[in-house]
């Protein structure tokens, strides 16, 4: 059936790149929303193969990076409770809070566990009825169905020792925020294929029309990304502002309706703080009132959090595409994956971590 190799085929990718080179006549700045896209560009070494006229700007699509400092501090406070088993995706363990990170809570004896799915957290809750199991529910729209289903099932199963610390963020309001900034230089977007697989493309149409910006949903294989850029460049060169789908095998215009229904049954839109960026109105999801008992913020009443960011870290500027990681004075000097000052260096999808691992400025 669908062979992954087709989308990694060197000849096809090189053809797409040549076509981009033949199409482009001027400089264009294209933002890839998603950390997974950033990572893929660097992993395959695609950046250097693109013509110089194309500038790729890395977007804020790294949920680990944008989880607010306040929520990270709350997570640390909750994880430090003796009766809590705190479960989270691995990347969140090293995200710096105001004083420390979740990893150091574990090192001090806290029960902090890495899980690959919230289903595991439900399982842990079943197996440990005398403990409070909390899952750190971060993510864009891609993880929302998983988190929603987990909360629904917890309620169905009467799992009263399970709760979720929710930090969902939504892509379209972030795009609005980036495009309305006076510092904006983004002229087109590569939308995240798996976010669009869930939510569809309909939310992007009004954005494309309002700001006269082409938007293309792409997958994550080299050919997917190159064809996505090709479609985008064709629109830019022809002054077109449509929403195109360069990942039709996984993305439908209407998205996954079942997933959207599950999400809307469980979550409601809310304002969200994006770390390094600030408050973006209605850019997040929180649990609906009927699920309040499963909301860890409500269950643990963690208030009076005093946040303190590193003065040196410029994650926010990087997430908005206004600076590149190597323009940060701390990059590679005092800020490294072993000793990160900000979340963009911690997450495997963060731009700073990607540049540190794959960055070309250290050779040639």
């Amino acid at each position: 059936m669908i062979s992954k190799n087709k989308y990694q085929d060197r000849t096809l990718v090189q053809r797409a790149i040549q076509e981009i080179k033949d199409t482009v006549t001027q400089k264009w700045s294209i933002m890839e929303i998603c950390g997974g896209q950033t990572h893929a560009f660097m992993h395959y070494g695609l950046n250097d193969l693109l013509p110089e006229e194309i500038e790729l700007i890395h977007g804020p699509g790294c949920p680990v990076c944008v989880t607010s400092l306040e929520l990270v501090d709350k997570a640390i406070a909750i994880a430090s409770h003796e009766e809590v088993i705190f479960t989270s995706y691995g990347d969140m363990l090293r995200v710096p809070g105001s004083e420390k990170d979740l990893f150091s809570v574990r090192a001090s004896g806290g029960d902090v566990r890495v899980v690959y799915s919230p289903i595991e957290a439900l399982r842990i809750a079943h197996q440990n009825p005398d403990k409070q199991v909390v899952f750190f529910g971060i993510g864009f729209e891609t993880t929302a169905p998983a988190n929603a289903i987990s909360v629904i099932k917890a309620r169905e199963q009467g799992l009263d020792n399970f709760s979720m610390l929710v930090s969902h963020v939504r892509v379209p309001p972030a795009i609005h925020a980036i495009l309305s900034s006076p510092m904006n230089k983004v002229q087109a977007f590569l939308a995240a294929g798996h976010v669009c697989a869930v939510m569809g493309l309909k939310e992007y149409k009004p954005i494309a029309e309002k700001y006269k910006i082409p938007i293309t949903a792409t997958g994550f294989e080299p050919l997917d990304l190159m064809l996505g850029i090709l479609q985008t460049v064709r629109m830019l060169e022809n002054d077109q502002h449509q929403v195109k789908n360069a990942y039709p095998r996984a993305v439908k215009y209407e998205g996954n309706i079942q997933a959207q229904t599950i999400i809307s049954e469980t979550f409601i839109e809310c304002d969200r703080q994006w770390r390094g960026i600030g408050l973006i109105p209605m850019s997040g999801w929180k649990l609906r009132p009927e699920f309040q008992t499963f909301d860890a913020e409500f269950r643990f009443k963690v208030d009076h959090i005093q946040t303190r960011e590193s003065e040196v870290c410029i994650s926010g500027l990087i997430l908005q595409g206004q600076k590149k990681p190597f323009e940060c004075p701390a990059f590679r000097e005092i800020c490294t994956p072993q000793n990160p000052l900000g979340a963009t260096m911690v997450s495997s999808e963060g731009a700073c971590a990607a540049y540190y691992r794959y960055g070309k400025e250290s050779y040639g």
Partner: protein
Amino acid sequence: MCLGIPGKIKEIFEINNIKMGKVDYSGVEVEVCLEATPEAKVDEYVIVHAGFSISRLSEDEANETLTLLQEIDEMNQKEHNQ
């Protein structure tokens, strides 16, 4: 986090009233929650993210991606003939 890869459903079952599937990736089998893609059947492909299927993969539409390249070929052919 955006990591989502296509796998083939080998088996569908239920645990604690949750619809689950055994999904195969090149011989590795993973347990995946199928609640968000309830119509997915055995032998179909799904995109899985954090242990949940988020989308069914469509073979027809997979080929659509490659028609863009065919268009490029046709255009190049036209220019060549001119």
